[in-house]
């Protein structure tokens, strides 16, 4: 038992910090801290900075162009970048598709797609959820029918995050409707420029349009775009869902959010003194901080297990549940902290290049929108109900 980081790990942290100091634009960090949306260019420039340092794909092995970090190094990177309010790395190509291709793709697929992910040539999005199948992921209806050298795809995907920026989508499609739900699914890569693909934004309750519906109408996809074997897609889908979850707890986001809400509560005045000195508000902050301190260690324990080669199993479901509850509690505190100024909502003030005065303090601008937006954390990516079922099934063995 030893809670300390090794000298190598400490050195690595110092490297990350100096990289952030040199490369992270303060305008960008401010937008992240204040919960304002980022443009496609914002993400691309941050990706490019990381890529030129060789740090864009921390989880990929070196021979695929990744950094080949240990889980602890990845955690340190995650911790410091989030605390510095760097943009998140868009995960669809890097932490979702990449590992699947590396495990199940052909050498040709790897050679073609992986470099384009790193260079930013391709922006991937995810085609898992469908309107009729939310938590019930295996109920895929989008069909792919073989026709010569092509599959003809018809159907609809939904909740496709940042799909508006993407030129490629990886999809679960049904290639066999005669067998058990899980057995007739395939994993297909689709160029979004193909005729018949339509993207329609979904405006969420906070006014943002970060998720989309994607429609497929007789879309012809070359058979070479199939990953692995036909009808075996469920295996790859599960691999994707359970493999790359080192950051599922969102410790970094919570640390950054907690620091932010403390700053706000120090600036806000309640009853003639800083809000942070109000015992009731201080208690709320302390309670979530104590939970986060423990959860951060739970996360490290899981990382250590992963580093030792153990599959995290129910552990990542536990981290997902507790991690999202903590993140949501922090956005709730942020909303409370700003008081009456939680109400004003000026979408234009969230835009990049907005030059007007905010209504109230700038930190209030996106507080409520972020609170509502973060309700998604316990819904998307496997709802907390699904996670609880996984936990209890694993433990109860019933």
């Amino acid at each position, binding site marked *: 038992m030893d809670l300390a980081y090794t000298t190598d790990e400490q050195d690595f942290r110092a490297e990350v910090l100096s990289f952030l100091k040199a490369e992270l634009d303060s305008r960008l960090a401010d937008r992240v801290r204040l919960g304002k949306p980022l443009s496609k260019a914002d993400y691309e420039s941050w990706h490019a900075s990381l890529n030129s340092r060789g740090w864009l794909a921390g989880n990929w092995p070196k021979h695929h162009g990744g950094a080949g970090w240990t889980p602890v190094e990845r955690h340190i990177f995650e911790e410091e970048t989030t605390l510095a309010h760097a943009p998140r790395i868009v995960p669809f190509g890097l932490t979702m598709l990449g590992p699947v291709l590396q495990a199940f793709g052909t050498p040709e697929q790897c050679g073609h797609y992986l470099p384009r992910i790193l260079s930013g040539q391709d922006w991937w999005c995810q085609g898992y*959820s469908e309107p*009729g*199948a*939310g*938590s*019930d992921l295996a*109920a895929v209806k989008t069909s792919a029918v073989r026709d010569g050298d092509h599959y003809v795809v018809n159907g609809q995907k*939904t*909740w496709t995050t940042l799909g508006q920026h993407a030129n490629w989508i990886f999809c679960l499609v049904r290639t066999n409707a005669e067998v058990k739900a899980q057995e007739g699914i395939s994993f297909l890569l689709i160029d979004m420029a193909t005729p018949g693909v339509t993207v329609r934004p*979904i*405006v*969420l*309750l*906070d*006014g943002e349009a970060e998720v989309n519906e994607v429609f497929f109408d007789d879309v012809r996809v070359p058979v070479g775009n199939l990953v692995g074997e036909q009808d075996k897609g469920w295996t790859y889908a599960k691999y994707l869902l359970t493999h790359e979850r080192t950051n599922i707890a969102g410790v970094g986001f919570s640390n950054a959010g907690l620091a932010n809400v403390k700053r706000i509560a120090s600036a*806000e*005045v*309640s*009853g*003639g003194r800083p*809000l942070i000195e*109000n015992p*009731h*508000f201080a208690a*709320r902050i302390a309670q979530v901080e104590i939970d986060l301190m423990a959860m951060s260690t739970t996360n490290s324990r899981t990382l250590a297990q992963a580093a030792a080669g153990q599959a995290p199993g129910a552990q990542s479901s536990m981290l997902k549940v507790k991690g999202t509850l903590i993140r949501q509690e922090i956005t*709730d505190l942020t*909303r*409370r902290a700003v*008081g*009456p*100024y*939680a*109400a*004003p*909502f*000026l979408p234009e003030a969230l835009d990049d290049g907005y030059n007007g005065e905010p*209504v*109230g303090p700038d930190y209030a601008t996106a507080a*409520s*929108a972020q*609170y*509502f937006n973060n*309700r*998604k954390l*316990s*819904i*998307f990516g496997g*709802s*907390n*109900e699904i996670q*609880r079922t996984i936990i209890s099934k694993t433990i109860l063995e019933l």
Partner: protein
Amino acid sequence: MDFNLTEERQMLQDTLRRFLAETDAQDSAVLWAELAELGIIGALFSEEDGGFGGSGFDLSVVFEEIGRAGASVPLLETGVLAGGLIAALGGEGDKTRLEDVIAGTQQLAFAHGEPLARYDLSHVGTTAKSTPDGYVLNGHKSVVMNGGRADTLIVSARTAGGVSDTDGISLFFVEASAVQRRSYQTISGADAAEIYLSDVNLPENALLGPIGGSFDAIETQVARATAALCAEAVGAMESAKGMTIEYLQTRQQFGRPIGKFQALQHRMADVLVEIEQARSATINICGHLTADRALRERHVSAAKNLIGRVGRLVAEECIQMHGGIGMTGEYALAGFAKRMTMIDHQWGDTDHHLERFIALSRG
């Protein structure tokens, strides 16, 4: 004890519910005129003030329907707050103003909050200095609901005392044209504004009520507004509940309606229990609006605290049970969730009222 609505209130409820369900008035001015015509504004005032209601349970009937329909109308600002202050403090000369309000021809706003006030009702930094002809006002009023649309504002300003004293607060009629306003929408879609008063000269008769002695009236009318907000929250909860029940009954996952899953059933049961609590807290505040101050304000803070907690629970659970669809802006649930959440930010949130309840309990 009697928990039934009187026949009149039952009619009021039926009329308003039907009207709000059927109206297609997109223009808020048209909607406002129609509400006035239906007598809804009048229901917020007593007979002696020219209305035909005005009690706590009149407010709760009206505002529960507003909440249920998710209607965005300045009934609270024009009718309960500003209108209530005029009814409480106004002289003979202000009668016509009330008549205009009830007839729907004038909209008002109560410009009271300030950037540093948070939820402290006695925090008034805006100043009103005596001049030979009347008063000159300076200050910044923040998040003034309906502030961008009101014809006339009732502005609180300090004529004496320190910035948080209850003594020394006066009220003034200020025409909207005399101030600088920055209008915007709230996240739940209501109109609000920042109001900047820069050497605003007012005549003597702009004063409403006693000089420096308006705090009690403000507290009393805010108590009524709080009751109305609680009822509005209950209405929004009822709609969110109805939508969620229907979704649980119809949405299929894993081959059956998701309402068949016991974990959701039990959580929904807890939501139902808490909505009953919210309804009861609203009855308590509405039933004690005319009680002595200590008892009234205890119920004000108890109810607003409970409504804040239950509002959060209902909003979060209903969204969660809907899953992705609950996150979408075009689905009506979002509006109800936002409204019940943002009510927590009007006239004191959960924590503010918890602390206040403790102080009031200490006596």
